[in-house]
């Protein structure tokens, strides 16, 4: 799933480690999320969205392809 995590992280001037510390995951998880290799749990998605004061769908982009289990 595509997301705007890197964009919003950079806007806040946080490093990957700083973001990881704020949502209590490892830095590797942030790296995987930003590269789109890993889809977060709904809980982590909400934590990240709340941190950036966004709605989940503003941060994580759900496409039609994913709707068909692509």
């Amino acid at each position: 799933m595509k997301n705007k995590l890197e964009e919003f992280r950079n806007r806040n001037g946080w490093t990957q480690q700083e973001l990881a510390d704020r949502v209590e995951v490892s830095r590797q998880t942030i790296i995987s999320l930003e590269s789109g290799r890993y889809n977060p749990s709904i809980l982590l998605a909400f934590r990240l969205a709340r941190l950036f004061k966004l709605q989940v769908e503003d941060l994580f982009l759900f496409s039609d392809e994913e709707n068909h289990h692509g």
Partner: protein
Amino acid sequence: MDNQKEWIMIRIRIGWLFLVAGVLVGFVGVIAELQLGHLFKDFRIVTGLGILLVGIGAGYLVRYGSALKDEKSALRLTVEERDERSVLIRARAGNRAFWVSTVLINIGLMWSSFASNDRLPPLTGDTLWFYLAAAVLLPFGIYITSILVDERNL
């Protein structure tokens, strides 16, 4: 008590549980060796199990006990161990290892069933030892490999 400390305290309790169980099992092994040594060939396997449990318990106590003293390392430790991606990777590895283990155990069971009807040669001696060793090591290998692959791909 905050969430991290509570989580670490649970691990420390588990460590004590292993340690106490290990001491008890080890003690039973030593006593059995002395008192009932004439009944079975070797009770040292029980003592060995006790030592293993003591080792696991001590490992838990050292790892989580040191984290309790320092708030920053406690946070890092809980984050590392509860990190959802790491949990997923370990769960996937465990699932794969479980299936390999199940297949190997089933093959062994089927083989010994057929062997008891003289349809296959029986697994004895070295062959049995190597098969059992493979049944232990192969799932472990799959577990480690799966973690390495998923760490790179996920």
